[in-house]
């Protein structure tokens, strides 16, 4: 049987369905798979170093003791959550401007990862709070706005399961953009409202010790690399799904 073009499908069948190529030319498995493997390995090694630094290099905090070490992965989780939702915001804007499926796929991928990391924030924060404040949860401005952010993007993922096709992408893009407005509110919540949540002070008297800052930076880098790895994997998954849907449609 004569084969041509995408996914080895017969040419007559290809004509019946709109072919799905690569979202971006660098997303060819032959190119991106080895690069992403390297990113993944570096991220893992970096996380191991960050863990060792958090446990043995960073000094014990005098007031809170060892439970303060939660901070070295709590803050990077929050950073990745915000970064992921910023990607959702940008990709959603691009989708509304260009109506290209690749931007919708990128927004979905980043939203899913953002929810995972925000879940980590909401799991690790209360464990620290119990030791520091004596309660797992208080309706503090930063905690509440972070919970709202998590709920917005849980809603975003649920919306994607309810609507279909172009309508789904359009509605999701609008929610992805509007939902991101909560991120700057979370950031400034500790300054505009009276809040119990600590603020990060680096390089000033009474701020973090240099070893603490270095540990935090390594943890931030390791989670950023992990985010890059997961995002590439997730977008490749979405691309492969589209290609399979194309095959299904073509075969009938």
């Amino acid at each position, binding site marked *: 049987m004569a084969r041509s073009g995408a996914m080895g499908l*017969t040419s007559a069948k290809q004509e019946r369905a709109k072919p799905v190529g690569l979202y971006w030319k660098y997303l060819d498995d032959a190119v991106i798979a080895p690069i992403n493997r390297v990113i993944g390995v570096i991220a893992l090694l970096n996380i191991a170093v960050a863990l060792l630094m958090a446990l043995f290099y960073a000094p014990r905090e005098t007031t809170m003791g*060892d439970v303060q070490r*939660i901070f070295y992965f709590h803050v990077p989780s929050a950073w990745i959550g915000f970064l992921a939702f910023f990607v959702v915001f940008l990709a959603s804007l691009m989708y509304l401007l260009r109506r290209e499926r690749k931007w919708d796929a990128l927004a979905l991928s980043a939203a899913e990862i953002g929810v*995972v990391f925000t879940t*980590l924030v909401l*799991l690790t924060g209360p*464990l620290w709070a119990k030791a520091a404040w004596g309660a797992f949860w208080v309706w503090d401005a930063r905690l509440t706005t972070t919970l709202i952010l998590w709920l917005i993007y849980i809603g975003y993922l649920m919306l994607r399961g309810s609507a279909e096709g172009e309508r789904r992408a359009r509605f999701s893009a609008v929610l992805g953009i509007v939902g991101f407005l909560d991120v700057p509110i979370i950031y400034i919540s500790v300054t505009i409202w009276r809040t119990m949540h600590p603020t990060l002070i680096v390089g000033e008297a009474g701020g973090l010790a240099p070893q603490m800052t270095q540990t935090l930076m390594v943890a931030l880098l390791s989670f950023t690399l992990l985010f890059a790895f*997961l995002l590439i994997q*997730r977008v490749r998954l979405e691309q492969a799904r589209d290609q399979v849907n194309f*095959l299904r449609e073509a075969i009938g």
Partner: protein
Amino acid sequence: MENLIIAYVLIAIVLTGYSVTLVRRRQAVERERIRLQAKDEQE
């Protein structure tokens, strides 16, 4: 100290769980692709 251990274990479980889920979803897509291509060839 227990809270610290619980936090680190939870982080490990969530991140490993999500990574494993991604791999499994990818494998499912690949299996479906192979099945469809085989069906196409039979026809």
